[in-house]
Every structure is written in structure tokens, then in C-alpha cells.
């Protein structure tokens, strides 16, 4: 997804773009996750700014590609089941409002106006009208197509070409070299490997996620609905399993129940305890789901950086190399802003956001 967005904005800035991927379009994490474009789960700071920029760009793209990418400006509802949780949630919402997010407190007795099938007994919630949704694989494929970039799928990057002075001048693939004065590393969870090909370190790690997919249903869940603990899980540094429930309907009918987070490397094996925890969380929020059947799961590996911020921008250690990766559980949402910023710096302009927090070499300096 991130590579597709970089290609689109770079091409629209007038650059000649080739998009190289070892698999097909959307064959990485993009084809294995959900497509929430969220501001609700972000604390004020650089990530939220990137999210707000990205949302604006998604809205623009929606005029062009909306139905094709199943774009739904449905809004999100975060609910709390205990007074402490609600207090924390409303506190966060107030800070987010100050940072430019639309957030509306919803008292307990109004929750069912928003979501008629919610469980009784919740203490209240916050409505985030700006939260949106796309279908990630379709989004990636349609952005690539709209970019008209040369699409070189089925090609693995095996090396980064450098001039004698050390500047990047293209990539080596298993099917020939691709020359370019600028190379953008948008290899998601595998970006650390690509960075290593250029001789630089980038600490991207996998954080596994399962999503449960139900049988198709008539629309009954209107927003993206999740419990307040989710924000804590997203920001967590723990390697242990976390499964705060996130429930959403899709244009195609199935309800998606996400999203577990655990750091277990690239282990693809199915975990019944994780599926049980997701199901339990979802049925607590929406009791009607008890009789609904789970059909399958998605499994993916979020590209995770130690400080939960992506790497976006030029790498001073390898002139000509740019990074656009490490977006963890928000790479779909943050892709447009990322692509836009990358295109701005590739074009020699000043990026719209300060890229300092996203500097790719920031971990190296900390270590020194």
C-alpha cells in the first residue's frame, strides 16, 4: 500500500516511476489486514499529524476512486465498559480535539442511537466522524493503476546499486537491474532487509495480527466499533498477546473482528486461543454475533518500529535512498500522507510536515 501511494504521488509530481515487488500487488501485509483509516486511536503527536494529512488526501482520492476501493466514510465509535475507562477515553478525546480531531462524547443512553445492536451496560463512548475505511488490496491495486507507474511484479530486489561516491543509483533484482537516482524502500515488514542491502540498519520487526472474518450479514454494525483498551494495546510495547476487539462491517457483508497483536516473529501457524479471545471480545460488544459464524481468518505481520513511528524520508547514510516503511498497524491509513511527503522531497520541495520524528537514522543516533 505504501509503495503504491509513493508511486502515485511521485508520478503525479512528474517523476518517472518504476514499482518493483517480489510478489503481486498487495501480496504483503496490505493483503492481510483491515483497511481502517483512523484518527481515533492516535494520541496527539507526529503520527496523528500524519494521519490527519493522510485522511485529507484519502478524501481527495475518494472522489476519483471511491467505489473502486470500497471507500466508506463511516466514522468510528470507541466505547468504554467501566467508568475509569470512560474517563481515560474522554481525556484522550479532549486532547485529540485540541489537535484538530473531531471527537464527540456520547453518553451511555445515546450509544444505541449510533449502534443499535451494542451490548447493554456500557458506560459511554466517543464518536469519531473522521474515521474511514477502504478495502486495502483494492486500494493498493487502484492506486498503482492510477499512477501509471511501470509495474514490475515478481521481481525480488537483491541489491542496491551505488556509485563510487556512495550515492544510490538503482536496484539489482533477480531479473535485471533497475536504474534510478532515487530508490524508495517501501518493503513493509521486510524493509530492514532492503535497508541492509544498502548497508544501513533499520529496526523493523514483525508484529503478528489475526482478524476473524464472519459469514456475510446484512449491515448491522454501522461504524467501526472498538473498546477503549484498544488504544492502549496499539501503543503497547509488550510482546505478549493483546486482543482488544475491533468490530466493523464491510461493504461486501462479512463482519471483521480484529485485531490481535503479538510479537512472535514470522510464525504463520494458526492460534485457536487468539481466535477465541477475538470472538469473546466481539460477542461482548455485540451479543448478536454469538450466533454468527466465523468463516476464516486473516493473518499478517505489521511492520513495527521500536518507537511506533514509521521511517519516512531520506537516509543520510545512503544518499538517494528514501524510506517509507514501518507503519505498523496503520500503514493503509498513513500511506497517502507518506507518499505525498516522499513525493514532495523527491521533487526537491519542502515537505508539508516536519519529518524529524520519522528520520530513518534516529535509532542509530540513540544508540550512540
Amino acid at each position, binding site marked *: 500500500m505504501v509503495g503504491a501511494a509513493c508511486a502515485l504521488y511521485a508520478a503525479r509530481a512528474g517523476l518517472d516511476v518504476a514499482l518493483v515487488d517480489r510478489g503481486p*500487488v498487495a501480496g504483503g501485509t496490505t493483503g492481510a489486514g483491515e483497511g481502517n483509516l483512523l484518527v481515533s486511536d492516535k494520541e496527539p503527536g507526529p503520527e496523528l499529524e500524519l494521519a490527519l494529512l493522510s485522511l485529507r488526501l484519502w478524501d481527495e482520492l475518494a472522489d476519483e476512486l471511491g467505489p473502486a476501493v470500497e471507500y466508506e466514510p463511516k466514522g468510528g465509535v470507541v466505547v468504554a465498559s467501566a467508568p475509569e475507562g470512560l474517563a481515560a477515553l474522554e481525556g484522550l478525546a479532549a486532547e485529540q480535539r485540541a489537535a484538530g480531531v473531531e471527537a464527540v462524547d456520547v453518553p451511555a443512553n445515546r450509544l444505541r442511537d449510533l449502534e443499535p445492536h451494542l451490548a447493554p451496560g456500557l458506560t459511554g463512548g466517543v464518536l469519531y466522524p473522521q474515521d474511514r475505511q477502504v478495502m486495502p488490496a483494492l486500494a493498493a491495486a487502484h492506486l498503482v493503476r492510477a499512477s501509471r507507474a511501470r509495474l514490475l511484479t515478481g521481481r525480488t530486489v537483491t541489491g542496491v546499486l551505488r556509485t563510487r561516491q556512495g550515492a544510490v543509483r538503482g536496484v539489482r533484482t533477480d531479473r535485471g537491474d533497475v536504474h534510478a537516482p532515487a530508490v524508495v524502500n517501501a518493503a513493509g515488514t521486510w524493509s530492514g532487509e532492503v535497508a541492509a542491502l544498502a548497508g544501513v540498519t533499520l529496526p523493523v520487526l514483525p508484529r503478528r495480527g489475526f482478524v476473524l472474518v464472519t459469514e456475510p450479514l446484512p449491515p448491522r454494525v454501522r461504524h467501526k466499533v472498538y473498546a477503549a483498551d484498544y488504544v492502549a494495546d496499539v501503543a503497547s510495547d509488550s510482546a505478549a498477546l493483546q486482543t482488544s476487539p475491533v468490530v466493523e462491517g464491510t461493504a461486501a457483508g462479512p463482519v471483521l473482528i480484529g485485531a490481535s497483536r503479538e510479537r512472535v516473529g514470522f510464525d504463520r501457524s494458526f492460534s485457536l486461543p487468539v481466535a*477465541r479471545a477475538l470472538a469473546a471480545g466481539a460477542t461482548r460488544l455485540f451479543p448478536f454475533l454469538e450466533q454468527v459464524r466465523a*468463516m476464516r481468518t486473516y493473518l499478517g505481520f505489521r511492520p513495527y518500529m521500536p518507537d511506533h513511528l514509521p521511517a519516512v524520508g531520506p537516509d543520510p547514510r545512503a544518499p538517494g535512498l528514501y524510506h517509507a516503511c514501518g507503519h505498523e498497524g496503520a500503514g493503509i491509513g498513513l500511506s497517502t500522507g507518506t507518499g505525498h511527503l516522499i513525493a514532495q522531497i523527491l521533487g526537491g520541495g519542502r515537505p508539508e510536515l516536519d519529518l524529524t520524528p520519522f528520520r530513518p537514522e534516529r535509532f542509530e543516533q540513540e544508540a550512540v
Partner: protein
Amino acid sequence: MPTDLAVIGAGPAGLAASIAAAARGVRVTLVDAAPSAGGQFYRQPATGLGARRAQALHHQWRTWTRLREGLDRHIAAGRVTHLTDHHVWNVERTSTGLTVHALSGPEQETPVAVRADAVLLATGGYERVLPFPGWTLPGVLTAGGAQAMLKGTLVVPGGRVVVAGTGPLLLPVATGLAAAGVAVAALVESAGPEDFARHAGALAAQPGKAVEGALYTARLLRHRVRILPRHTVLEAHGDDRLEAVTVAALDPAGRPRPGTARRIPCDTLAVGHGMLPHTELADTLGCRIDGVAGVAVDDEQRTDVPGVWAAGEATGIGGAALALAEGHIAGRSIAARLSGTAPDPRQWERVARSRAALRRFSTTLDGVYAPPAHWADQVDDATVVCRCEEVRAGTVREAVGRLGAGDLRTVKLLTRAGMGWCQGRICTPGVAGVAGCAPTAARSPFARPVPLDVLAREPLQEGPDAC
């Protein structure tokens, strides 16, 4: 209810294994989705099996009676527990062994868990049906589906039937229908006599099978069924239901021969293009799967996951006799391994030899029976290839041509083909063929859709109280 061995699937493989293991002191729980034992083969109507005069078929009948009696004896002695109407949705590896999770009850909503030291996956296979224009019309059934209609619970297919496609099942299905008094208008098989000639050596090495085939053919001729080798169904016609099919002869390259198309009026079309193994439970357990061929096993029928064996068509399509041989070997291997000893393969040498011969024979059949090389060309853009999600061939082609889908997974993501109720079990081969990419085995951690409240609850009781 803990058990030594849980056998999933009560077809020839599962039955042979249960009997072989129980006879050696293993406590067996046999779990099967069907209301009675027999699997795909012995569940078939007596009319399909019981042609009393034909010797080969008589032999099958005797084998079935022996299995049935063996099972009943072990059940009566308390060595085997048979859980019918139990749909297994997942097999879980736990710290103490394996847990088989099943759903029972009229709506498949009651959870049942069986804890076992060893599991045998004997889940068999399912029919492959490739799409063609009109294949979604009411009146078009799978070959096995048409056969099942004969069981008496449903009406005998009305009027005229055409049996079509490719594979060794078409012959017995057509014979069964004809013997039951159904008017079979034609048997349309895309393999031709020259395909058999090419493999004559290997086919002749299995005299029993050749006799079986010849008997079926003779019976078809007696029932005046027209056999059209090297032909294919181009299209099924009808407004709200099937009225006729157009068939055509195939040229040596597998394309319809111009000028040979003709219409055959019929009310039922039974089609099948061979079988595919059920591999989902094995896949979720982490067992190695050999592409679309089946679960990979060693000489003892062990998978590469400790405690998990597989036998029968789950490990590769090969017919009932092969399933019996594999099941028997698996049962003996399990009995030995559970008692902590390595089995002595010499004890089942004869069965192993027959297993080897039958596997060679089925490899040969795979070479003989193949859908026409260019079948996907006949599927026009308007034809629905995924019925659950109503995805048309044109949409699949667009995902490949315009959106950069290069493999089946991406095709599915971009079109939703294979994402519906059947989870791609029906449409995957067709979608892959139209997309021009390699088919992959259907995969889902849930071999059956499972209610979220069942999933949410940790199973409390072990097995049904009744047993």
C-alpha cells in the same frame, strides 16, 4: 471423554484404520459428519454397488459388509465410539496432546471436544467442477450429487440425464443411474481412447480395475447409454432451469472441433472433473501439504506433525481400494506407536505392495483423465465463476490484466472470488484456470463455519455425555 485415537472420517480409510487399531487394543473415537458410516463410497446406494452378478462389484459389496461387521463388533465391545453427524472444524495441538473440535446438532451449533493422543485424518476428497457457460442453472449437479439423489431420500432425477466431464467416477455414476432406471442420454468424457492407449501398460497392470471398468462399460451399453469420448460440454441451456446442453468433439490439442457441436436435450446434467483432497484440518495443524495433491505422509501414513496420521483420499485421490490399504497401515502404525514401539512394516508387506500398485495406477489415471487443455477459453466473461460471491469470469480477467494480480490469493482479494460460504472449495480450480494461475488448496483454519459463541467459549466437557 479422552480417547487414544480420534479418527476423522468414516469412509474406507477411516473404517479400515479404526478396525485395525481397535483390534490391537486402541480405544478409538470415530468422528464423521455423515449420519452413518461408509464415506463417499459405501454411502452410495445399493443400486450403485449391488449388481449381484458382476463379480468386481460383488467384491466391493463383500468388503463393505466385512467392514461394517467389524465396526459393529468393536462398537459393541466398547473399543470404538462412533460419533455420527459430528462436523470437525478444527484440530488443535495442546500441551497434552490433540483436541478435535466438532459441532453437532441439527444446526451444527453444539460444541463437542474429543481429546486424543493420536489423530488420523481420513477426511477424503470432494468433487472438482470447472465452470462453463450455464453451469449455474438449476438442474446442473455434481456427478456425486446426482448419485446421491438416488439414495431414495430425494426423487430420482427427472427425465433425461447427461453425465459429463472427466474422471473415473463418471463411469460408475452413469452406470448407477442407468441401472436405477434413469434415462442417461449420454456420457460425455473429455479423455479419449488414445489417452488410454498411451497408458495401456500401466492400466493393464491393474487387472481388477480394468475388469471393473469394462464391466461398467458393458452395463452402459446394455442400457443403451451413448458414450462420447473426447467430447466436452460447451454450454448448458435453459431459462430458469436446464433444458439442453451443447456438446462438441475435441481436437488433439483439446479445443472444440469446429462443426461438431450438437444439442442434447436433458433435464439434469451431472458433471465432475475429478476429485481434490480435503486438506484444511491438516493445513491448520501445520502438516506439510503437497500442493493440491494432498497431505504428505511417510510409509506409515504419518504426517510430519507428531501424533497426526493421514490416510485415504486426504493424502491423494486414488479410489476406495487405496483408501482401505492406507487406512489399514495407518491403524497398525498408530497401534504400535501408541504403545511405544516402532511397528514392523513386514507385517503389512502385502498391503503395502497393493498400496504401491494402486498409487501407480492412480498416477496413470491422472494422466488419462484431464480436463480439455483449453477449457478456460470456453468460459465467456459473463459466466459466473464464483457462485457464492457471484463473481464473473470477466472480473477475474480484469484483476489479472488491469490490476496486477499474479496469483490466486490476489485474485481473490481483488474480486472476492472464493471468499463466500464455500470458502473457495467449489470455485478455486475454476477461478485459477480463468485467471491463468496455479490452483492452490482451499485453506481456512475452520474446516466448517463455527458460531462465534462456540469459538468464544473454552470447551468445558470432553466429548458427549451419551458415550
